Structures are given as C-alpha cells and as structure tokens.
C-alpha cells in the first residue's frame, strides 16, 4: 500500500495577513451567514475568543478586535502557491479541499535516503513560507488526512501505531454529513475504532453507500481519487546578444527572433496572448522591464513587433544592452468572433487594434473610453472607462427622451463674464448629498453677444457660471 503524507493548513488566510508576528493585535477571520469565527490568532485566543463563536459574541468579548472576512479565492491561491513551492521537492501533490495538500510519499523515497530526510526537506521548505500546519503519514489518503487534521504531527510510518491513533479519533472528525454522523452516534458508535470494528456487511444493511464507501476509502480498500498538481505553462526565452548594443534601433532583429519563437509556441498550442514582458539586461545597470499589451489576443510575431517598436521608441537605454528576455505567463483562447470576412471593416484595422497601437504609442493611461452614467449632476453624467468597454448602447435605453445638453462641457466651470440672454430654462438640479459633492443649480440655455449658445447656471448664492458650449 502506498504511503501518503498529508499537510493541513488550518489558518492560511490568517497566516498570509501579517508577517511581523510581534505587532499583532487580536485578529479573527469570520465566515458564513452568522459571521462565525473560522480562524483566529493567538492574541484573539488569549482574549477569550474561540472558534465558531459568532461575530457579536466575539466583539463583545474583545473590544480591540481586527476582523476580516473569509476570502475563499485568496486561500485557494495561497494553497496553489504552496503546492508550487513544494513541487520543487516532491512530485505528486494533490490539492485536497480548501486547506490541505496530500503528498504521495512512496514514489519519492527513491530520491531521498529515507522518510526522515524527505520530511526534513519538506519541513525546511514549509518553514520559509511561515505558515501554520499539521501533518501526518497514512496508508490511505483519508487516514493521513484525518490524522493531520486531528493535529497528529508525528512522523510515524508504523502501520499499527497509525491505526491505533486513527481508532482513537472521535466520529466527529470524519468529513461526513452531519446526519450520517448523528446516525452513528445514535447507535453508540463514537470513535473510529468502534466504526472500523463493525463488519462492512452490517454497516451496509444499516447505512447508505456514501458511508460505506467512505469507510472503504479510509481503510484503503477502495480507491481514493486524486489529481496531481501540474505547474502552469509559461513561455520564457532569453537571447544573449553577440555584442552589446547601444542603440535600440538595432534591437529589432533579435527581438523578432524571440517573437517568432513565441509565435510558434502559441500556434502549437492554439493560444493567444494579450500581454508580453521584455527584460532588457543592460551592462552594470538595472534590467529594464517592458510590458507590452494588446487589447485583443494576438499570436503573430509581426503584429507584436509593430507594437514593440512603438514602445521602444519611447524607451531610453541607460547602458549598453547585453541580452533580451521574453516571457509570457498568461494566455487566452482564440476569440470566437474573429474577423468577419463580409463585415465592412475586414482588412482594415479593428478598433481594438487601433487602441493597442495608440496605447503603445502614447502610453496606456493616455487612451480612455467614455460612458454615460445615470447621475443628474452634469459633470458626473459621464465617466472614463477602459477603451471599448462602454455600455453606452445598453444604457441609452434607460433614457427614453434625450436631454438637451451641450456636447462640450468645460473641463472647469468658469464664472460667467459676458452678458447673456436666457433662452430656455430653468432646469433645477439639487442632488448628490451622498458623496459630499452636493449641488444646487438652475441651468439655462443662453445666448451671448456673438450669438454663441451657452449652457449657464445660477447657484444658490445667485452667482452665475458658464458650464458648457453648444456646438
């Protein structure tokens, strides 16, 4: 039978909150509808808070409490990181639930002298990560898990001893639905030992298959499904230049070489990427990192080259260039829409393409989209958004009748200097108390001496301002 090592991390989120343990205040992580405590640090425990306490009770117990909400995604991410980290020392890792790693030991022992050395390596790796954990070996994945979760924390591969300790666990340690557990308790089966003593046949007569199956897996008689961790795929290439370059104009060729490699890499996998990272290593100087993005996924080397060159135009070298590295970590699937052969735009540049070029040329921040917002205050009636994400067409349906508004709002409201004739109005706008930018204005359409149509308003103090110009 294979030997397994289980690592149980009871407070992953808490562990990743602070690194400086000396500065900690009582901290708890709460989850669920009742906001019950699921993780707590030593200080919180000292203050009298216990697991499963409600937030109200916890807060009543300790006044200076730091409360965080349980973050499932963060925990999962952290677990993957740990797996990635351990992968360097052990091959077969199964991510078990939200807070456990199952390591298959049997295969690894050929690499290490014995189990002790193996464990020391793992332990050393975990130590760096600064996480709290419990562990156990076991001859079935489930057995190892139960013991680890019960904080067995002993490196013991002796089958009889393991079984003895397993038998002493209460039934409540089993990850079974409450109903099943109660069913067991109600006939006096309170420990695993009592449970394992019952012949499978008798169990089968009285309990459903789920429980029987579970016990089977616990005994190692039935298969425990595991999927082993696979590290994510990345594209990383480095090209050392034959001679140092001082002028970036010369970099195009070597760059293209890398990009063609990327193109082949992507083509083989039928993937696209939206961003690539260049690292330019300079002599005696910090390496220069360049992120180049494209609004839509792309694999073609020539397209990427075009964008790269635009970015390089804006880049200055501090010292001669020694080597270039290209890395791509995120990939995306090819877009289903693709280019429509019959659409008018076929053959010309797509909007996304244009945005990518503009952003490469001008910098990402310089290119923005615009979308309407349902705010009555004119200066907040539109907002900037990432290019091409505006839902303008869908929000337009909210306004049945178009409003009489100038196309050009002045970036700054100006006091009204010239005499005007009021033509239309007032439109009264008093709102915005909720975010502290409350306004109280009467808007008018007016005409000045040169027959320009202006959008002006009067505030509560009867001061007049110019806010926009009609085209």
């Amino acid at each position, binding site marked *: 039978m294979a030997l397994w090592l289980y690592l149980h991390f009871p407070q992953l989120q808490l562990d990743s909150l602070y690194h400086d343990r000396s500065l900690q205040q009582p901290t708890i992580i709460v989850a669920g509808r009742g906001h019950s405590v699921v993780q707590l640090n030593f200080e919180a425990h000292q203050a009298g808070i216990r697991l499963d306490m409600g937030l109200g009770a916890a807060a009543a117990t300790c006044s200076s409490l730091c409360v965080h909400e349980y973050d499932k995604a963060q925990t999962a991410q952290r677990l993957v990181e740990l797996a990635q980290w351990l992968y360097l020392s052990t091959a077969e890792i199964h991510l078990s639930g939200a807070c456990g790693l199952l390591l298959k030991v049997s295969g690894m022992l050929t690499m290490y002298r014995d189990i002790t050395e193996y464990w020391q390596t793992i332990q050393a790796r975990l130590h760096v990560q600064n996480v709290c954990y419990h562990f156990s070996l076991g001859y079935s994945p489930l057995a190892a898990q139960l013991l680890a979760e019960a904080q067995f924390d002993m490196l013991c591969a002796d089958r009889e001893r393991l079984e003895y300790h397993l038998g002493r666990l209460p039934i409540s340690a089993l990850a079974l639905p409450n109903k099943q557990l109660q069913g067991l308790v109600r006939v006096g089966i309170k420990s695993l030992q009592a449970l394992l003593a019952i012949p499978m046949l008798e169990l089968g007569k009285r309990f459903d298959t789920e429980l029987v199956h579970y016990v089977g897996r616990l005994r190692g008689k039935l298969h425990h499904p595991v999927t082993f961790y696979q590290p994510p795929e990345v594209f990383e290439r480095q090209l050392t230049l034959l001679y140092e370059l001082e002028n970036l104009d010369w970099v195009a060729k070597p760059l293209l070489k890398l990009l063609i490699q990327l193109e082949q890499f992507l083509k083989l996998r039928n993937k696209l990427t939206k961003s690539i990272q260049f690292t330019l290593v300079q002599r005696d100087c910090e390496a220069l990192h360049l992120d180049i993005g494209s609004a839509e996924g792309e694999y073609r080397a020539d397209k990427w080259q075009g964008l790269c060159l635009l970015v390089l135009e804006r880049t200055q070298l501090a010292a001669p260039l020694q080597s270039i590295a290209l890395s791509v970590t995120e990939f995306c699937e090819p877009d289903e829409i693709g280019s429509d052969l019959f659409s008018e735009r076929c053959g010309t540049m797509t909007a996304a393409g244009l945005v990518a070029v503009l952003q490469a040329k001008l910098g990402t921040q310089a290119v923005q989209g615009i979308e309407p917002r349902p705010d009555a205050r004119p200066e907040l009636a539109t907002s900037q958004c990432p290019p091409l994400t505006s839902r303008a067409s869908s929000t337009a349906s909210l306004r049945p009748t178009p409003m009489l508004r100038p196309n050009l709002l002045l970036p700054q409201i100006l006091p009204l200097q010239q005499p005007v004739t009021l033509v239309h109005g007032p439109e009264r706008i008093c709102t915005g108390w909720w975010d502290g930018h409350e306004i109280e204005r*009467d808007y008018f359409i007016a005409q000045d001496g040169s027959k320009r149509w202006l959008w002006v308003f009067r505030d509560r103090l009867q001061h007049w301002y110019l806010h926009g110009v009609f085209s």
Partner: protein
Amino acid sequence: MQYAELFCQSNFSFLHGASRPEELVRQAHFLGYSALAITDECSLAGVVRAHSLIKSEQLGIKLIIGSLLRFEDLEVVLICPDHAAYSELCRVISNARRRSSKGSYTLEKWDLMSLRHCFIIWLPAGNKIDGDWGKWLSRYHYARTWIGIQRRLDNQDKRYVAHCEVHAKLWNLPICAVGGVLMHSPTRLRLQHTLTAISHNQAVDQIKSHLLANSERAMRPKVKLEKLFQPSWLDESQRIAKRCAFDLDELRYQYPSELVPAEQTAMQYLRVLVEQGKRLRFPDGVPKEIENTIEKELSLIEELDYPYFFLTIYDIVMFAKSRGILYQGRGSAANSVVCYCLEITAVDPRQVAVLFERFISKERNEPPDIDVDFEHQRREEVIQYIYQKYGRKRAALAATVITYRFKSAVRDIGKALGIAQSQLEYFIKNVNRRDRSLNWQAQIVELGLEPDSMKGQQFIELVNEVMGFPRHLSQHVGGFVISAGPLHDLVPVENAAMAERTVIQWDKDDLESLKLLKVDVLALGMLTAIRKAFDMVMRHTGRALSLADLTRMQDDPDVYRMIQKADTVGVFQIESRAQMSMLPRLKPACYYDLVIQIAIVRPGPIQGDMVHPFLKRRNGEEEIAYPSDDVKAVLERTLGVPIFQEQVIKLAMVAAGFSGGEADQLRRAMASWKKSGELMQFRDKLLKGMAERGYDSAFAKRIFEQICGFGEYGFPESHSASFAVLAYASSWLKYYYPAMFVTALLNSLPMGFYSASQLLQDVQQHQVMVLPVCVNHSEYDHLVCRYQNEWAIRLGFRLIKGFNQKMAARIVSQRPEQGYQRVQCLREAGIDKGTLERLASANALQSFSGDRYSARWQIMNSEANLPLFNGKQLAQVQHTQTPDVFADLIEDYTATGVTLKKHPITLLDEADLLEPFTRMNELAGKTHKSLVTVVGVVTGRQAPGTAAGVTFFTLEDDTGNINVVVWAGTAKAQKQAYLGAKLLRVKGIVEKEGEVIHVIAGRLIDESALLQGFNNKSRHFH
C-alpha cells in the same frame, strides 16, 4: 390667491412619500393652502391621521380624500367630492387590492370605466400613449376629468407643459395645477432618495437614475406657485377643492342587524338577555345595589347607543360557549355587571364592586372597550365563525401599521448608504436600547461609527428621521370590524399576508378617531390550559368546574398562602421571576390584591418609582395621605399610590387640569410612545399644571416617568382585573389538582413562561409522580393516571420532538392487549421508520428493546423491510455499545427536553467533577448576606425592561431552581460567562426576603465544558 393641493402622497405610499400625513397637513396650513388632498397610492391608510390632526388642532384647512392609481401607462388621482364618491373609491381600492397579494394592487380597466362619482385628475405621462388615454377619458368621464399639470423643473419640464396643453386642447379638458407632493419640506429630499433606494433594495449611489433630480416635489409656497402656474390653472384647482364636500366624520357605523329578533329593538333585546343572565348568575336573587348598577349601566348603554356592540360580543361568546371554548372578556366595559350577566366575563361583581365606577363614561367620549380572550388553540374556530356569519364582505381585521423601529431603520438606512452589512449587524447586536444613560447615537459612535464623517452624520440623521415611518400594513392580532353593509363602502379592504385573511386599511387608532367599533378576538394560552384542567378534573373526579364557579366560591386562604410563598410556577401572570420576587413582599390575600400584584410589576409603576411607596403603605410603614380630595377619589383603592394607567390619566385631569380631550390624546400618545415619541409634549403641561395646583414637583415628575413607563407597556386596571381571575383560577387548580393542572399546561404548550422540563421538576417537587413516555402506555397527550394510589402524570408522545400525531393515534389504536413485544410488531402496525426512531430516541421502546442504541440498531436494519423477511424473526447481530448515564441524559434532553433520571448536577457531582457547592435546598439554611457558591444548568436568562440593567438567571440544580440576580456591572465585567454559559458556577451573596431566596452574583464561572454536547435549551433575552 387661493391654492388647493390635490395631489400629495404621504409616507403611507410606502417607501415613496417622505413625510407623515400630520406633517403635510401642518405645512399646508402654514403655507396657507385652502385645502389638501392626501392621495396615497391605492390607499387611504394615512387619511385618518390627517383628519384627526385637523380636528384636534382646529386647523383651518380642508382635507380632501383621494388616491393615486396606476393602470398600465395611465396615472390618475381620484378625489372624492361626496360620500357616494368616497364609497366608490373605497370599492375601487378594495377590488384592486383584493386581486393582488399583500402590498401590491391590480387595477382593471373596468374599475376606471365604472366610476360615476369620483373626480379624475389625469397626470399625462408625456409621451405618445397619452393620445389614447386622453380620448378614452374624455369619452367616458368627460365632465369629471381634469389634466393635472406638474412643474418638476427637470430637463423635460417645458416640453411636458406644452405637451399637456396640447392634450387639453385636443380633448377639451380643463387644466388644474398640482404639486405631486412627496415631502412637506425640501429638507426631506435626502430621506426621499434613501427611501427610493430602500425600495430598490440597493444603495443610493447605485440607483441614481431613479432618484428625483431636485426637491421640487416638496410643498411650495404660494408665491412660488404663482410664478410657476398660470392663474387659471391655480383657480381651477381651487374650484375643484370647493366642490369637494366630503368629510370623514360623515361616516357612520352601521351595526349588523341580524343579531336582533325582528320584532324587538336592540335595546329591548339586550334587556331581555340581561334579565335571563340575572337568573343564571344570581340564582338566589339579585342584591339591591347590584340591581341598581345594572340599571345604571343599561341606561348608559341606551343613551350612548351601544346595545349592538354588546350584542355582537354576546353572540360571539355564545358561539364559543356552545363549542366548549373557554373565554374571558376584559377591558373597561367588560368589567360590568351587564357583561357578567351576558356571560362575557366571570368576574363576580360582589368581589370587585369597587371597579364599577369605570364603566363606559360620557365624559371620556371613547368607545367601549371589550377584548375577549379565547383558548389559543381554538381561536381560529371563533374567527371562522365570524367570517361565516357576516361574510368576508362585512367582516375584516383591523390593520396594524408596522413602522420602522431602531433595528429595521439601522438595517435599511445603512444599506441604502452603502454601509457594510456586517457592520450594521454589529451595531444592532451591540447597541443596548435599554441603556438609558447612553443614547443609541453615542453607543454607535462607541462601536466605531465616525461621528464627524459625512456618512456617519447622514446615517444618524436619517435613522432618526425614518424611525416611526410606516413600513407596511399588517393584521391586528384580533380586532374585527363588522358592519351592516359591505365594509368596502366604509373603508378599503386589502389582503393580509395570511391566506384567507383580509384587513382594512385603518388601524385601531384610526377606528377610534372615527368612532368606529371593533371587537377584539384574542388568543390566550392559559385559557386552553384551564379548560383542559377543568375537563380532566371532571373526567377523573366527576367534579364540574367553571371560572364563574371559582370566583363565586370567594377567596380561598389556602390558595393565597401558596401564592404568598411565590410557589407559582405555571400560574397565569404571576409566574415570572419579577412577579415571584414581589409576591412575598406584597402578600396578596384577596382578589383585588391580585389585581394590583399583576399591574404593579410593570414598567409604569416601576419607572414611576411607585412600588416601594405602595409596599411601605401596605405594611403600615408609611402614612396614607392625600394631597387633596380629588386625588383621594382617584387613588384611594391603591392606598394613595397611582398603580394603574387609568389612575394616571385621571390624575392628569384632576391634578394637572387636563381637559377630557387632552387626556384622551395623552392616552393615545402613551399607546404609541415608542413609535412616535409624542409623549414629551405633555411633560411641561403636566408639570406646570400640577405645580399650579400646588402639588409637589418631585411627585409630578414621578407621575410623568410613570406615564412614560405605561407608554412602554400600558396596563390598565380593567385588564388586570380580568387577568386576576385567571391567575386565581390557575392558582386554585395548582393547589387542589396539581397533577391535572400541570398535565393541562403541558398539553397546551407552547405557552407561558416555563419549559416542560421546568414544569415537571416543579410538579415533582410537589410530590406528583411523573412516568416516562412508553410505547405501551402513553397516548399523544399527557395523561393523568393513578400510580401507587396517587395521581401521577404519564408523559405523552407529544413530548417527543417532531412526533406525528397521526402515528401516535395509530400506535394507540393498534396496540395489542398485552402491548407491543417487538420492533417488528410496530412495523407491522404501520408505524414508519421516522416514528420508530423517535420512539427509540425517547427511550419509549425500553420495555422490550433494551437501551436506545440497541433499539436503534434493530430499527436500522433494512433487511427487515424486504418482502421475503416479512414477519420472520431475524437473527440479530449483538450490538455491543451501551449508553452510559451521561449519554442517556443528553439523549433524554435532545429527544424530549426532559429527563426523569438523574440530574446533570447529580451526575457531575457523583463523577466528582464539581468543586464544593451549595444546593438549592440547602440555601434556606444559609444566613442572610452570607457568601455562597452555587452551580446549575442555566435554564433562564431574562433581562426585563422593568429592571434597569439587571439580569435574572435561573440555575437549575438537582434540588430545584436557584434565582440568581446579576447586576449590569457584574455582567459587563464577566461578559464571557454571562453571555455564553450553559453550566454556571456563581459565587455570590445570599439575599433572603421571607421565604424567597436570591443569590446576588459576584463571580460568574462558565463550567459549560463539563457538559460537552449537553443540549439543554435556555430561554435567552427577550
């Protein structure tokens, strides 16, 4: 210029209107409007409040009744020029409301088409569809339709006005000016926005497109209106208002006539019934003075024209009597000899003659008040009878207006301001509303709300503003309105949340304002218990009992001796901890003492600090003196100390010079003190009035405190008097027939104050044997039986949690003569697996299956269900696990909540897990003020509002219940044990007062760890 506002919505257009009807009326009057129409959307729920305010403050403004209605794209305001139009509007609203579930309405085109009397103010939508509606309206309602123009000064304002003018020309309809008022003042815009957000269930900044862009929907001064509207439009509004002549005071209540035989008048019939009643109630002849009282009462009833009211109630109680449903009337009018003769109450007038001066009175100008309590398990029969007799068209429940209270306000406002839900819950859980030293704002700041931040200020301001705002209409607990004709001529009727229930749109105050009568049909658990106890006494001893019999037997000193010892677990009203601690001090010895006892442990007398003076005077430690003869007349029966709500109101009249009307307002303000906080306005008047008349200012202040206390929980003497009858009856039963009484109580649970476990412990301490649930002896209900020549209680299957009544009946009916012998026999009798398991859990199969574990092991075997094995004795694999005593105890509690075996404390003590402690039965031997340690299971935790900051813990050990008093300071310092402990060790000081013993807690130690898995439910703060 004159202006009448014809379109104005109050906060009874829930989550839309942002001002109370009263505020709107006041503001309209202030702005000099000639008339105001309250036109809530498909509702008349707010009109009575506006009406009452105009009347009580004598404002010179006319109230017009109307309602906003929407149908598809059409918006119209219907207003009532006359009574016929009013009935029509009520009918339309009722129909629309009845078609839809609670809170919404569905109008049909026919409703609008069939209008014959209402005026229609059409509010064009401002788009193309208006063409169709303009045509339709001018075709069907030509002379009664106006176009109501609003000036909202928004982006579309100019276009909208032009649009309306075009349609007015097109269909030849006159134009009137309307405000579309949602707020009485522009300052309410924030609240209006917030309410809109609440109705969209989102934060304000997420629903900006739905918000009003400005505050133009507030009431506007006339100067401004003149600028906005053409004079002819304003005049037209005024003209319409002038044509509206309907006044709510025109509404007259018509009693159902079928109650009276054809050839008699109602009064004649009532006299006949009273005559019959006299013979029944006074078989030995009516004493002279009582005869006089009856005559006085009858002539008063005749003069005020209330015979129908008494007949209606008589009819209902006679139905209850015919079905054997126990009932008892209460309320000021109930305590009359007429009601005694009509069998509405069982209060013998010879015992309580002192009460009869407070029958319905002319001066008080209030409708008679009779509530009737029925057995709680059978009240539905009475309700169905009323519906059957009068039909759903003529009978409906009064509404209760559910308003924003602190918690709901914090939750909704917080959400609308985008404050995190968890923070709001945290506020709510940690704000102690009973902490009088620190108001909630300050407490919330302590809990981490930034008081200076914009959000913080807005939050506090809006929560304060919204508290008391109506949220929705709910049904009154039992107030029926019954009328001669269809109710919807009188008031709109709508569906309640409960299926098959309808409520009117007015609450009890509204009904009272309009002098409409309602009949209260209430439910009381104790009546069920008493009736069941009577039945059991009859069955086992052959002695017939009734409430009237018990009162007629006069006061029984033995029963009062028991009451004085505070041996009152299970007794009506005087069983609570606070009551029990008062009993030995007050030592009630007669019926009227009980009346006082019930009323004195209430927020009113306690906050007014009237308890101690009363006790002193009663014990003769303080002289009984009266500041004046007037006061003497009011306070004589309570030794010069005001105890009852009526006395306090009367005092306001005789000592502070309140007029009858003012006293009436005071009474109402008391009833809604928590909701509206109106009471404060009476403070100065009361203090000043009493000072002017030479009363001590400290006394006056105490009276006001007491008034506030009554506001929290009003308790009039008339109710106390009826409750005292039940308290006495239950005490009598407890004393003479404890087994029957407790069995009846257990069979009526849930009710009262104590759990089954506590009741059983108490009865065991009274030497009544309790026998366990057994599949071969028990029935569904608990039974009284003979055991070792004594009355004993055999627990029934109902004690087992989740037990099916039908299965219980089957177990009993199929039971073989020699009883069930095997699990298989029960299976064959058709008992399902769930029931079997429950029986096993309750150890009810013990007689043949051994312990619980093996009983369950047998039941679980699914082989037995296979057809081949049917009827065969199966070879059983021996099951080796056996439960220990502790496990048994836990299971007893989980399955039934009761254990008849060893108490947990005994078990823990035997296992030597407890440090030395004193048991409850040893406390009596301790000296007053001595140090003591007690241990017990926490079975009760009460923080009554009447006891500032004090929590009463009930600890149960194996000899009885220990009363522990925890002061606020102790509780705060030891929060953990205070909040969470299930098993508590208390070190404290013994306090003895006569035979009653308390332990004043000094240290609380949580010992719950000893009870791992122990699952005894305790009553938490209420």
